[in-house]
């Protein structure tokens, strides 16, 4: 079955609503958490999206949703897991992806390339390939190999079973290996032009 798409992109218009009720203590509590965690979440969001503007927007939305549910989530003692879950779900949101594509069209600032001092170009190629993975597989890769979460923790955040995490990770690694075998072991798989 082919998924159909509406071709044009739009930013649905939303305006500010009335202010929600807040208390200074609540806001101070929330701010402390946000300032402590935002850099880490921004980096994760960047790896999930591959785009800095989108990552910043994603994290802002995640914190906004956390803000709306702050008391409940805080009382449950599951803030980190909750906000990561929002991050992944938001990134998978069909509506949001479309919306963001439009915003990027007019605001794109090329991301800087990051170079590992030990990189021989292979790392960059690997990153390019990570960005071609399906959203959910990429989320597994980022949570497992960047956040270094356990399979169980990853499963909980993604709302899937541990078995699915294992199979998604395995499939993602196989895809990376298959698509660019030369990046993983250049000596065994010389490039075409090097032969």
């Amino acid at each position: 079955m082919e998924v159909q798409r509406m071709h044009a992109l739009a930013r649905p218009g939303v305006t500010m609503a009335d202010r929600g009720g807040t208390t200074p203590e609540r806001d101070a509590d929330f701010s402390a958490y946000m300032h402590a965690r935002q850099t880490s979440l921004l980096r994760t969001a960047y790896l999930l999206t591959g785009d800095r503007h989108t990552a910043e927007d994603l994290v802002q939305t995640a914190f906004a949703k956390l803000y709306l549910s702050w008391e409940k989530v805080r009382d449950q003692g599951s803030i980190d897991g909750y906000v990561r879950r929002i991050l992944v779900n938001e990134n998978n949101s069909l509506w949001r992806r479309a919306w963001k594509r439009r915003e990027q069209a007019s605001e794109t600032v090329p991301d800087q390339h990051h170079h590992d001092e030990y990189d021989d170009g292979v790392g960059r190629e690997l990153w390019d390939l990570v960005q071609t993975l399906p959203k959910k597989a990429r989320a597994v890769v980022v949570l497992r190999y960047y956040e270094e979460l356990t399979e169980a923790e990853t499963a909980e955040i993604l709302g899937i079973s541990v078995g699915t995490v294992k199979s998604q990770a395995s499939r993602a690694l196989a895809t990376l290996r298959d698509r660019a075998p030369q990046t993983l072991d250049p000596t065994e798989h010389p490039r075409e032009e090097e032969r």
Partner: protein
Amino acid sequence: MNDHLTTRLSRQLHAQADDWQGAPLTLESVQGTARTIRRRRRAAAGSVLAVAVLAVAIPIGVTFGGGSDTSPPPANPPTRLVDTDNPVEDSPLGVSFIEGRTLTLPNGAQTRLPQAYPGGVVLGDTALGLRSDNGDLFLDVIESGAVDETIPLDTGFARNADGTAIAIVTGGELVVRWESGQTSFGAVPSGLSPVRLVGGPDCSEAAGTCAVYLDDQTGGAPRVITTTGANQLVVGGPLSIGDVSEDGRLTTMTTEVREGDLGACGRVYDQTTQTTVFRTCEVTLERFSPGGQYVSADVAYQDGLRGYIAILDAQSGEKVAELLGDGSFFNEVVWEDAEHLVAVSFRDGEGWSVIRLGVDGSVETAYGPVDGPQDVSPLHLLGN
């Protein structure tokens, strides 16, 4: 091999991200986004309500064509058609729709409404305009282009499958109305909102049994109330119900909301055999197609404006058609016939239109585009 790969992968992910600080967020900016999200959620809930709530039947004094032969002739001259001097052309849509103050029926007949209703219903030869006043809902009965009667609604209303009768809750009483009469099912607790009427049009006790399925907006379990006064919980333990098939056998229902409101699971449930036909956490199940072969669906994680429509086989749960908004969003999604959904859609730079999605995956613009601000749709579908 994988150890080497995962080590390299981990190192590259850190190299890629770890020296980035990003723009610092402020509490004020996060609060602003939170307000926007809250508003979108309200808008989404409102649009669902508008679709679910459209209805009540009253003659509008114009023969729309194809109506019942037994309908009494209008006492007043017919409401003037918008374009009476020209032959009526076929409507572009198989459902009635409102554009501004003009109501267009599937046969192309049009009538001028007293105001630009954001919703309404046409039942046989009768129509009603839905409006909101300070948060209270009303159905205006329109006759000869003017409001003849106004019915306050406690919650919402629902039609039967062929659109010949509706169920409403008014003054704390559950009432079914059809062209030639109405009957009360008695008082109901506050917060119950009709989702679907099964049976009719004549739902009087002498004529036979009708059943009204209602969601409890106060958080209680959905109920079904029948002509005979039976009032019981809907079988299958749903948190809410989306629809009931024409024969009253199948129900779409939400059975679980995931922690943090990050999604929901539901199923198609057979009320007669008390078995699950299929279950899904991938989408939110909505309305059955006429005939009940398919069911429409939205994403499981509903976040503000709608950007997705799916059609599933009602027996297998297999997705047969899928449409991504890709930046467009959808306001009202209704079945046009047994194999097509129509939806009001907004696209930046183009305006509002009605798109049609077929069970074969075909997509086309059925009507429009029409100018209008993006936060107020000029188009409203009066479908089932």
